[in-house]
C-alpha cells in the first residue's frame, strides 16, 4: 500500500471507484440503448454525467503524499483482520444465495457456525448449540409473523 518515495496509493479506494465508474457507465449506456427520448433520460443522463465528473474529482484523493500524521491517523488493520472480514463477507453472500437452494434451516445453521467461529467463538459445543437454538427460534418466530413460508429442509 505504501510507496518508498512517500507516495501513498490507496488501491482499495481505486478499486471501489472503478466499480462505481463501471456501474454508472454501464447504466448510462443501457439507458441510452433503451431510448434517447427525454422521458427516459431526463434525470438519468445528467445524474450519470455528474457522477463521472465527481469520480474524476475524487481520483486524486487516492494518491496522497505519506506524512507521519496520516500514517498514525487510523489504527492499522493487519492482513489477518482483512482476511477475516473477507471470509465473513463470503459466508454472508453464500447465505443469501443458498437460502432457496438448501433451505433456510440448513443455510442459517451453516452460516451461524462459520460466522461464530470467524468472530472468535472457539468453544465448539457452545457454537453448535447456540447456532441450532437460534436457527430454530428464528425460523419458528419469523415464520409465525410473516405471511410467506420459508423453504425448509429439516425443520
Amino acid at each position, binding site marked *: 500500500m505504501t510507496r518508498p518515495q512517500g507516495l501513498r496509493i490507496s488501491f482499495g479506494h481505486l478499486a471501489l471507484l472503478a466499480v462505481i465508474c463501471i456501474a*454508472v457507465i454501464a447504466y448510462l449506456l443501457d439507458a441510452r440503448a433503451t431510448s434517447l427520448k427525454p422521458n427516459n433520460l431526463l434525470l438519468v443522463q445528467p445524474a450519470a454525467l455528474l457522477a463521472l465528473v465527481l469520480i474524476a474529482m475524487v481520483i486524486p484523493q487516492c494518491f496522497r503524499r505519506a506524512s507521519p500524521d496520516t500514517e498514525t491517523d487510523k489504527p492499522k488493520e493487519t492482513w489477518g483482520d482483512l482476511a477475516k472480514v473477507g471470509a465473513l463477507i463470503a459466508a454472508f453472500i453464500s447465505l*443469501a444465495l443458498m437460502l432457496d437452494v438448501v433451505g433456510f434451516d440448513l443455510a442459517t445453521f451453516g452460516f451461524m457456525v462459520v460466522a461464530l467461529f470467524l*468472530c472468535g467463538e472457539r468453544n465448539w459445543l457452545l457454537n453448535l448449540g447456540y447456532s441450532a437454538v437460534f436457527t430454530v427460534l428464528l425460523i419458528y418466530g419469523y415464520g409465525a409473523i410473516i405471511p410467506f413460508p420459508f423453504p425448509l429442509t429439516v425443520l
Partner: protein
Amino acid sequence: MIDFGALDAAFALLSSSWTAWVFVLPGLIIGLFFGAMPGISITMAMAIFLPMTLYMDFLPAIIFLTAIYTGAGFGGSVPAVLMNIPGTSSALATTFDGYPMARQGRHNEALGLALTASVLGCLASYILLLVLIAPVSHVVLKMGPLELFVIAVWGLLLLGSLSGNSLPRGLLAGVFGVLLGTIGMNTAGFIRGTMGVPWLLDGIPTIPAMMGLLAASQLLGLINTSYLIEDEGLRKISMPKILSGVKMAVKEPKIIIRGTLIGVIVGSIPGVGSSISNLLSYSEAQRTSDDGESFGKGNPKGVIAAEAANSSSEGGAMATMLALGIPGGGATAILLAAFAMHNIVGGPSFIAQNKDIVYAIIFSNFAQAMLLFFVGLGFVYLAGYVVRVPLRFLIPSVLVVSVFGSYAIDGSASGPITLAVFSVLGWAMVRYDYPVAATVVGLLLGRLLEGNLLRSYQVSGGKLSYALERPGALFILALLVLSIVLSVISRARKKRRLSVRDAAES
C-alpha cells in the same frame, strides 16, 4: 377551526365505551415489537393485524391500528440507536447520532432522548392536527408534481450536510444513490439497468439495500471488536441514565417544536412523509446549532431533531388521510382499508359528517402518545441489554435476522441478495470515508425525483416558464435557496469562530 359540539360528542364516545381503550396497550406493544424488528415495517405490522379489526367496531379498530402505528413509529428507533439499523426508513436520521452515542456508552441517554422526543413530537403533532386539519387539507390539494420535485431536491441537497469530510465524496455517494434509485421501469414505461433480472423492474428493493448499507456493512467492520461498547463500565443498563436522556430532551423545546412543524408539514404530503421529514429536521438542527460540527459524532440534539420529526409525521399523514381520503404512505393506506372494511369512505365528506369520530381518533392518539412514554421506558430498558451481548454472538445473529427481515418483505430471494450486495458496497464505502447515509437518501429519493420531474416535464410541455405559474413551487424553492444561503453563512461563521478559538488557544 374547532367544532366544540363535536368535541363534546368525541369525549362522550370515548368515555362511554371501554372497548375503545382496551386495544391501546396491545397495539402499542405490538407496534414497538414489530417496529424494532429489522425488515418488518410499520405497514407490515398493521397489515398483519388488519384482518383482526374486521371483528371490532369501527372506532376500536381504528384506535387499535393507530396504536400499532404509534408504537412502531418509535420502535424503529431502538435498533437505529443500538445497532445502526433503522427499523423503518423514517428512523434513518436517528442512526446518525444515536448509534455514535451508543458506541460511546451513552446508549441509555440516547434511548431516553429518542423516546421523549418521539412522545412529545407525536403529542404536539396531534394538537396541531386538532387545530389545523381543515387548513392543511386545502394546502395539500394544491401540491403538484413540480412542488413535490422541489421538495425532493431539498431532501437531496441535505446530502451537503451529510457529506462528511470530503464534499465530492459526499455528492458522489448521493448521486450514485439517486442513479441506483432510478433503476427499473420509470413512470413513462422505460426499463433501464435491470440486467434482465425480473425483480429489478420495480427498482432496487430499498429496505434491504438500506439495511445492507447501514447495518450489515457496520457489522462486517466490527468483526475484530469484542463488544459494541468496548469499555466494560459503560455497558450498564441504567434507568436513571435513560431518565437523564428524558430530561435532556425536555430541555430542547426549540428543536422539538421545529422538528414537529417540519414533521407535520412534510408528513402531510402524500408520498413524501416521514422518510424525508426526519432528514430535513436533522439538517435544520445541525445548521442552526452552535455545536453543528459535532453532529454525526453523537450529538443528542441530532437524535431529538430526527425523532421529533418522524413521530410527528404521523399526525401530518393522518391529517391528509382524514381530510382528503388520500393515504400518504403504506400505514395510512391500511387505515383507509380499515375504513373501507367498515363501509366508511374517508375524505372531506367523512370529516364533515363525522367530526366527533375524527376528534375521538385524535384524542385517543393523545392517550396513546402518553402511554407510549411508560410502555416505551420498559421496552428500551429491556432492549438496552443488547450492548452487553458479545459481538461474536451479536454479529452473526443480527446478520441472519437482517436476512430474514429482507426475505420477509416480499417472500423472495431478491431481499437477501440485495442485502448482501449492498452490505459489501457499504463496507467498502465506510472504509474509504464515503457517507453511506447519502447513498441511502439518494436511493430513497431517486424514484420520487424522477417521477415528479417527468410529470412536471409532461405537464409543462418542456417549457421552463411553467415554473412561474406555480407560486407554491417558487415559494418552496425560495425556502430551499434561503436554507442553503443560511447554511453557508452559518458554516463560514462557525469556521471563523473555530479559527479564532484555535488562534487564542495557541
